[in-house]
């Protein structure tokens, strides 16, 4: 019997007839850790969505749109409130730089972010008590001068940080430009009142009819408060420096809107109104003129065409719908009439430089036209009134000299809002003022706690290139439009022109969000992984775990990630994830190697008896 006396060593024993255990769901993959095939490791790396980046106060827009998609309205509202105190205001008035930046705009139509924010803001106002609470009191007092968007935002953030905040407002009612610069048919008064009431809920004291430089001095501020935020805004209207500008019937845009907003307007507009200016204030004035009884309203602007006008295009469109006429390329060189306005003298004109604030070149050699009107509203920008400010803090632009952190020198005085933004290159918007107020509040807090202020050095990766995402997963859908009141009737009322979203509309519009560069738990990677080696460890807003022992680096998940959040990082950049496979070797190590060993030492050995 030939097999008698044979013995199979342990390390060569094979299962019966070469039958091997089959991989099971739990244990099978232990046999073949294919992670060592990988040269690129997929990594979840959230990038900055362009909307968050463009927002003046960096609201987490992608975040709250995602929450709305999933029906979590309260969480979405709370998320906005981290950066924005009054979403029901910005949801109506903001010029939405986020929508301009929205990547969806390159694809079909930008998300109507402002409308969703309005939906959430109104939902928040309906709560009996707000979700935001004041911080634990730290015993320090801060004065905020001005209750406009910047002041409101600074006071809000400071209260959340635990400061005792007092807002000093020179007008009779709080609100700043929100109240007295934005018409009721954009922002109803009661909405603003409710938002201001939320400030009081946070323990903020608001003193109206209190003007710095009159009721309170600079030294009072220094003495009575640990720090101060100057958010005084630009309250003085610019003049067009035309002859006859002082006649009766000439009004200025900001005071016009402000007095109406404060309920203090005593003037009267004639039947034919001319509005000089091409910006948003001018548009609001033109539309308000109708509501104040004008029969014909004409806007006269130096810009040569609508595209050059520094305004929001949809507002211009709504204005024209209401029946305002538009004259381009003209400057008013004189106001005509005896003591009352009877008309304007117009000359062709152009801006001398690129930006609309550059000096105007009037063509005096051309014939002047006469434009008949009874009232003129001049809306060509504002400047500051800073008589009360110590000289060392004034700069050559006529605004407050503050450093990059909004601080005046090394004092505990800070400035925020239009008052520092004018001429800085940033557009003057509510949301930019809010952001400025927020950042200034944080900087103030750092200074009072003795921490140093440092500029940001880490570059942010803003994802604006659609090819970094995967568009296959996004069918084209049009934007959900907000309903508007009918133009002819609406110009006679102060009713809100743009209607808000219903819940279904908000969810549908939020559903169009790409979630650019940010994981939102869509499960695509989990589904397409061929291995499969992606585990859903935590479901809320997307955390997945990649099983590094098995991932082969095939890149399917990276290519199929709709938001572009998955990236491929070279494997050797990681110290971790070493997976060594044994099965690449012959089983009996050493048998042949011993022979090679012998051969290596062969020259040294002589013949000897066989052993």
């Amino acid at each position: 019997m030939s097999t008698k006396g044979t013995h199979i060593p342990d390390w060569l024993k094979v299962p019966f007839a070469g039958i091997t255990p089959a991989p099971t769901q739990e244990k099978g993959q232990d046999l073949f850790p294919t992670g060592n095939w990988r040269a690129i490791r997929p990594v979840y790396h959230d990038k900055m969505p362009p909307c968050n980046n463009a927002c003046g106060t960096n609201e987490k827009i992608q975040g709250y749109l995602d929450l709305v998609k999933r029906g979590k309205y309260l969480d979405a509202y709370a998320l906005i409130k981290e950066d924005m105190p009054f979403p029901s205001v910005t949801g109506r008035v903001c010029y939405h730089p986020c929508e301009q930046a929205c990547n969806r705009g390159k694809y079909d139509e930008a998300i109507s972010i402002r409308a969703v924010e309005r939906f959430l803001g109104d939902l928040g106002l309906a709560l009996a008590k707000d979700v935001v609470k004041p911080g634990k009191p730290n015993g320090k007092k801060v004065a905020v001068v001005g209750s406009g968007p910047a002041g409101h935002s600074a006071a809000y953030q400071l209260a959340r940080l635990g400061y005792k905040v007092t807002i000093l407002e020179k007008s009779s009612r709080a609100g700043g430009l929100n109240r007295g610069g934005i018409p009721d048919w954009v922002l109803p008064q009661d909405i603003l009142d409710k938002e201001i009431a939320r400030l009081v809920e946070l323990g903020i004291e608001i003193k109206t009819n209190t003007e710095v430089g009159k009721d309170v001095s600079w030294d009072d501020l220094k003495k009575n408060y640990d720090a101060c935020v100057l958010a005084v805004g630009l309250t003085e209207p610019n003049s067009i420096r035309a002859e006859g500008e002082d006649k009766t019937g000439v009004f200025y845009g900001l005071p016009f809107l402000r007095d109406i907003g404060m309920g203090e307007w005593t003037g009267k507009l004639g039947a034919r109104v001319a509005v000089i200016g091409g910006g948003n204030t001018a548009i609001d004035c033109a539309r308000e003129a109708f509501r104040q009884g004008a029969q014909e309203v004409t806007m006269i602007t130096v810009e040569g065409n609508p595209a050059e006008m520094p305004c929001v295009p949809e507002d211009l469109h709504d204005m024209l719908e209401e029946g305002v006429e538009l004259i381009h390329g003209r400057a008013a060189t004189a106001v005509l009439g005896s003591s009352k306005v009877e008309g304007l003298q117009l000359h062709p004109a152009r801006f001398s430089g690129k930006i609309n604030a550059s000096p105007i070149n009037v063509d005096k050699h051309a014939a002047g036209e006469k434009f008949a009107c009874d009232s003129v509203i001049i809306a060509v920008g504002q400047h500051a009134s800073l008589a009360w400010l110590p000289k060392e803090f004034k700069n050559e632009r006529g605004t407050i000299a503050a450093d990059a952190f909004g601080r005046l020198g090394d004092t505990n005085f800070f400035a925020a809002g239009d008052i520092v933004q004018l001429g800085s290159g940033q557009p003057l918007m509510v949301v930019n003022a809010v952001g400025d107020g927020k950042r200034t509040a944080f900087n103030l807090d750092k200074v009072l706690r003795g921490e140093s202020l440092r500029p940001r050095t880490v570059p942010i990766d803003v994802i604006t290139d659609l090819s970094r995402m995967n568009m296959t997963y996004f069918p084209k859908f049009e934007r959900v439009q907000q309903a508007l009141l009918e133009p002819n009737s609406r110009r006679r009322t102060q009713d809100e022109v743009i209607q808000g979203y219903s819940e279904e509309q908000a969810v549908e519009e939020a559903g169009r969000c790409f979630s650019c560069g940010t994981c939102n738990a869509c499960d695509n990677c989990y589904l397409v992984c061929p291995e499969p080696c992606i585990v859903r460890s935590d479901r809320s807003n997307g955390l997945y775990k990649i099983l590094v022992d098995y991932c082969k680096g095939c890149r399917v998940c990276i290519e199929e990630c709709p938001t572009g959040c998955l990236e491929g990082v070279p494997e050797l950049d990681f110290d971790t994830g070493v997976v060594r496979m044994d099965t690449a070797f012959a089983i009996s190590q050493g048998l042949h190697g011993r022979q090679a060993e012998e051969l290596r030492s062969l020259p040294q050995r002589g013949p000897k008896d066989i052993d």
Partner: protein
Amino acid sequence: MAYTELTVWTRGIIMDKEGRDIVNSISASGRLEGKYTQAMENYVDNPDRTNAPTRKYCRVSDSVIENALTYENEHPNIVVLVEQTMVKGWDYMRGMPPGGTLVINTHYSPEYMIRFVPGPERLAQLVCIDAAKLADHKWLYYRLGELGLDRLSTEGAAERSKLVAPDIAAPLIAAVVKTTGVVKMETIEPMIANKAAFTAALEELNILQVNPAAA
């Protein structure tokens, strides 16, 4: 050395030719110098699949190689990794006698790479060379469809390109020969198709002396 074993680790299909060029050219040079040499492909690694590890072997000896009919190099003195991530995936150091050399095609430095090497005390030196850059090779994993793509040769029977080392094998061969002297530079250099990369590599070697006394 009287008897040297050299094992090349590559990724299947896409880098087979590189690995084969290394062992074939070193073996051919050894023969020209009158030594006994042997070069063979892996046989026990499963059939080549793209990206899976495969090995090529070479033996150079002053006397007849009597263990020619074996499948693997069990005690490689020189190990070459054609693709850098392989440093993490297998125990390529298994069986290496003290005084060995490890050559890796990578842009990282040997000081960085040594952390991934199992049992590095057996190494006399760790050599890193950015062969892909020197050969101006458009790597890699994203563009498999465009790669050199000599997919014929997984059985070592047919080559699409008859050139020896037209690509990243050239700098790797230069690295091996320069740092180990397994064959002479003047014997092997004429065989190499990509002479520019070969010569450039001689200046670009990044060598870490690990345990030279072990040799």
